[in-house]
């Protein structure tokens, strides 16, 4: 069996099981009257003010940017690790240069106060 067929099979299986569970619940569960009071989102007893989709802080975005940089780095490192033994010393030096550049970037971000969570 090809790998991707197995993966797709299990993905469909998991989703199918979840669907069966949710449908079964939908069939057997009781229904309550959908009054206006029942249909309010939970907010500690007070009626909510406005929509739940409020603006959030920019710092999440900055951390996500940093993450993308390091995650792409991780993808490159995976391929390096897979052929580490055949590349030897030369491959190690090249990857070391690559990581040092990224670490300098991290230190720069650190010094600029990006990593401060206010």
């Amino acid at each position, binding site marked *: *069996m090809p*790998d991707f067929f*197995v*993966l797709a*099979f*299990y*993905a469909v*299986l*998991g*989703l199918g*099981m*979840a*669907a069966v*569970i*949710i449908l*079964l*619940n*939908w069939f*057997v*569960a*009781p*229904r*309550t009257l959908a009054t206006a009071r*029942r*249909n*309010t*989102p*939970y*907010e*500690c007893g007070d009626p*909510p003010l406005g*929509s*739940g*989709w*409020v603006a*959030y802080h920019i710092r*999440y975005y900055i*951390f*996500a940017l*940093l*993450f993308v940089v*390091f*995650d792409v780095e*991780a993808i490159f*490192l*995976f391929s390096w*690790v*897979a052929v*580490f*033994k055949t590349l*030897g*010393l030369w491959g*190690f030096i090249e990857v*070391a240069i690559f*990581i040092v550049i990224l670490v300098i970037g*991290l230190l720069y971000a*650190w010094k600029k106060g990006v*990593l401060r*969570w*206010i």
Partner: protein
Amino acid sequence: MSLWQLLYEPDRWADEINKLITNWGLQLGIPVFITQLFLMIVVAVILLSFILLNVAFLTWLERKVAGHIQVRHGPMRTGPHGILQPVADGIKLLFKESITLPFVDNFIYTLSPAMMFTAAMLTYIVLPFAPGWVVAPLDYGLIFVFAAGGVSSFFVFTAGWSSNNKYSLLAGMRTIAQVISYEIPMILAALGVALFAGSLNLVEIVEAQKGLWNIVVQPLGFLLFLTAALGETHRAPFDLLEAEQELVAGYMTEYSGMRFALFYLGEYTHMFAAAALMTTLYLGGWQGPYLPPVVWFLLKAYALVLLIMWFRWTYPRIRIDHLMNFSWKFILPLALINLGVTALVLVW
């Protein structure tokens, strides 16, 4: 030969059954493809039942551990020592209304719990439970585990966002911030192990640990991976996204009925997957004397699960700024140093 003796040779056992069924199919004139598909379905059913029973047991275990750590009994009424409690909980949740409020993003709202469970379940297909007992021994198994784990956390965010509730949204944003911060050190720590084995295939990583477990040669890597795995699977002390004192129930606030139960299923599936992955990477997987391989694997994984539960009921929750600082300013540099030193030693 008894079943217990067969457990010592799981790869031969799997091979024999495979051959037997294929030959039997050929005699009846059924194409090999169909018999293979049939075998795959049987394996899938076994794996799914294992996951579900395991999660049921884990929820009971967590409550018992919590109870005994706090000098009380935990569940005691349903069955001996409350062992049937997960069944009772499951039946209760099945008969509860799964409320969908009119202003939620309905499609994503329903999809999130299902996808979260599916993604967590997908990590199991590359885990080697015993020699030959792995659904798909992928050559890129390590990448796949991290990818599936990451996707699982992503659907926590979509659940929080689609609920249209301020608490859920906050929890969702925190999830993204926390998970992405702890994923990188986790990957970097695991890469140190992969360097030793010279492969990303989890089966080969286990076989490379014959005689010497990776925890001996990578003690720092193990500690980093354990810490990062707590952050990645949102377990205490890093359970900020469901901090019940400030966020009610975090991303699950608006969920009820079976959709709520699916989140629980996903969380515990993910937690056990993390423990099993740590067993595979650092504790030598199925290897050990006297007992059958699969028993060793489960013993080690459960030891780690108990450790994670012990953490939950011992440490207070970390503040969010400390959480982010800890990841970016402490664990990430240490993980980079760990990887660099490992590579340097191996090149030498």
